[in-house]
């Protein structure tokens, strides 16, 4: 009997919690902002962390956390949160600016592999909008496509029907593109395929074992892509294309 009461209590609490999580999160967010403005960055970080613990996320939250960590001079954590926010909204200019500044504060400077013209264009296009914005874009494109289709099917004058055909085609392409972009960004946001190095200095190994050859040295704050992971080791790639193995514990994936 007692168990059930406890369960019911828990359910009620959790139900209330879900409703109130948002409100609590917003209050803590505001308090954290106030702490940040007052220069109490440690307090700000703790409060922001509480919002994250509620299971909430958003660009402003991660961005502000990044700022608070930056001010604490914990650059790897700052980069971690900026990158996390950037996954949600790659188009945010403030994020890009602060990430660039934070990246200047870390040890490793890696020349990225130059992308081909098409890849670059593709990536640039994708970063115009956030994932959600692309989703909305696809809906609008779909609506316009249907309207154009209607025009094509039902217009009496031949000119209007031609207009309907071509604009319809255009909106269909736009729809397809935005669906692909939204899908890719969602995929990126859902999987933890990147990480920030958190250990001050770490040797990248040639195979997933401590006895293997040291390939190169990475320092905290460097971003890596996780290609595979098994047995506590991650196969990683850095921006210049070098590949190696690092222990899982040396990084924080996002």
């Amino acid at each position: 009997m007692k168990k059930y009461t406890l369960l019911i209590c828990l359910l009620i609490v959790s139900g209330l919690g879900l409703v109130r999580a948002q409100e609590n999160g917003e209050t803590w967010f505001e308090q954290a902002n106030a702490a940040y403005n007052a220069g109490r960055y440690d307090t700000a970080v703790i409060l922001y962390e509480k919002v994250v613990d509620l299971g909430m996320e958003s660009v402003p939250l991660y961005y502000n956390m990044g700022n608070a960590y930056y001010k604490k001079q914990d650059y790897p954590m700052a980069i971690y949160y900026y990158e996390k926010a950037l996954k949600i909204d790659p188009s945010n200019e403030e994020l890009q600016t602060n990430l660039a500044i934070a990246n200047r504060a870390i040890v490793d400077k890696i020349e990225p592999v130059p992308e081909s013209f098409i890849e670059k264009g593709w990536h640039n296009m994708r970063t115009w909008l956030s994932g959600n914005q692309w989703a909305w874009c696809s809906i609008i494109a779909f609506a316009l496509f249907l309207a154009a289709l209607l025009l094509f099917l039902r217009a009496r004058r031949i000119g209007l029907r031609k207009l309907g055909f071509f604009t319809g085609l255009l909106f269909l392409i736009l729809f397809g593109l935005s669906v692909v972009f939204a899908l890719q960004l969602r995929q990126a946001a859902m999987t933890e395929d990147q990480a920030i190095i958190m250990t001050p200095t770490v040797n990248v190994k040639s195979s997933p074992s401590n006895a293997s050859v040291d390939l190169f040295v990475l320092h905290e704050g460097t971003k890596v892509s996780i290609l595979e992971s098994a047995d506590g080791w991650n196969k990683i790639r850095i921006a210049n294309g070098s590949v190696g193995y690092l222990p899982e514990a040396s990084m924080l994936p996002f």
Partner: protein
Amino acid sequence: MKRLVILFLMLSPLWLWAQDDPTLTVSAKKQVMVGERFQVVFSANADGRNFTAPSFEGFTVVGGPFTSTSSSIQMVNGSVTRTTTNSYTFALQAYKEGTFRVGPASLNVKGTKITSEPFDIKVVPDDGSHAAPSGGGASSGQSQAQQNTNDPQVSGKDLFLRVVPSKKSAYVGEQVVLTYKLYTKVPVSSLSVVKAPSYAGFWTKDISDNTGGTLRQSSEYINGIEYTSAEIQKVVVAPQRAGKLTLDPMVIECIAQIRRENNRQRSMDPFEEFFNDPFFNRNITNVKKELTSNSFVLEVKSLPEANKPASFAGAVGNYNFKSDIDMTELKTNEAFTLTYTVSGTGNIELLQMPEPVFPPDFEVYDPKITTSTDVTANGLSGTKKAEYLVIPRRAGSFTVPAVEFSFFNPSNGAYQTLSSKPYEIQVEKGRDDEGGGIYASNQEDIKYLGNDIRHIMTGDPRLRPQRSAFFGSSAYYVALLALLLAFILLLILLKNREKMEKDTAATRNRKADKVARGRLKRAAQFLKEKDQDKFYVEMSQALWGYIADKLGIERSKLSMDTVSETMKEKSVPDELTQQFVDTLNSCEFARFAPGSAEEKMDDLYQRGIEVISKAEKVL
């Protein structure tokens, strides 16, 4: 060696020469220490010429050759022996360890060349304890009678060098005064520093008080023994890094003047005894002695990290900090002077002055920094001044913020921060600052003062559950589905409307004949009544209305042209079209040209009935 004994013998008619073969012998020490001076003597028992000295490899020739000659004639049992000795003396000094061979020397005696035996000298390292033979013996004319072998020794208890630090442990940057003192019980003359300490890891400043060229002497008791002490050197050192830093010893050379007492009985020479009489002050031996100070380890503590102020720049000591400004109200392009002064005890020469931050519209010249130091018992003290000459270029109200100066006070082991006053500076527009002048234009580029991250985002955080994306959510699919449904609905609606429109056209078509006949009936009535106007109106309406309904032409677009065109489209025979158009034309003509005959009206009526019935068959 320089002994000369001559025996005179009177009236000897027979001189018997008993002379050995001429030889060249050498005498020298077999073993010497590095830095030791010693003599090498080549002796020949005959007169000769062209003495050739060997090259003394491994040694420095300090003096020589000094030549001396002695001769003696002996007469024993009637035989007379005459002995001549020519000696060539070199003063050498060994400068490195090892065994060195001294080659043969040669001398020409009556046409034959005699040579000496080569020999080895071993040079051993200097153990530091030996008293180098003083510059007596070999060194030139002021030579004295003392020899290496019977030099008196000066014990380390009688004469030694010590370094006295002001403290045994210090913080990094803290001043420590080192005093090098010579303790002696014997008179000492001509001091010279052979090797100064290197002071690795220290900042140093010599603060020896050498005014007047005399050393400060005093009496000190060490273990109950009275010594005369003299300060040889006084140095302020400030360690630059933490750890146990070793200070090298200092090495000095001095000449101790020692009374020779024990030498007396050894001297068998009456002349020597005579000359060494106290009246001649010959019983003082000058002994050259090398003294090495003790080396000691200074324990250097690093400055505590806790509570280290941000403005701390390495100053250690006890300081005062103040600032001064000569005016706070001025006009543009006038200059004012801002002075920051640090004074106190500590390493004032290494001190870094805090730098104020001036408003960007101020032109600031590099500060003039003046330092004055005094030597006190505790080390250095003094004053450091930084004078800034500042010229405001823009009118307005500016603030030069307070400047902080921090230092570590080793006496209480804590950091202290002193702050200057902030200054409010009122700058009025000067006469020169009206366009022109120094500045052609008041425009200037924006000055970027710093680089920082952008500020945080405030307002609605737009929180949402983690890992939720609009794309792929049910809401997204619902939205797409709703759009699709709306599209289908719209499509059906449009189709229906079109159908309805078509339906109305069909009705009109069906009812056209009926309507036309009704109108024609009324026209017939007007014809009977001979009401021309109404008849034509009715006829015209009957014809136009019929053809419009029949062909599905809207009333607004109705005209002769559209009628004939549409009829052609619907493949109405040309003659019928012509007939219909003619009838319409004549109707319209008659309508706007009144006064026509009754027969004409009748004829038109008949023609109207005819074309309508004809058209009814075709359409």
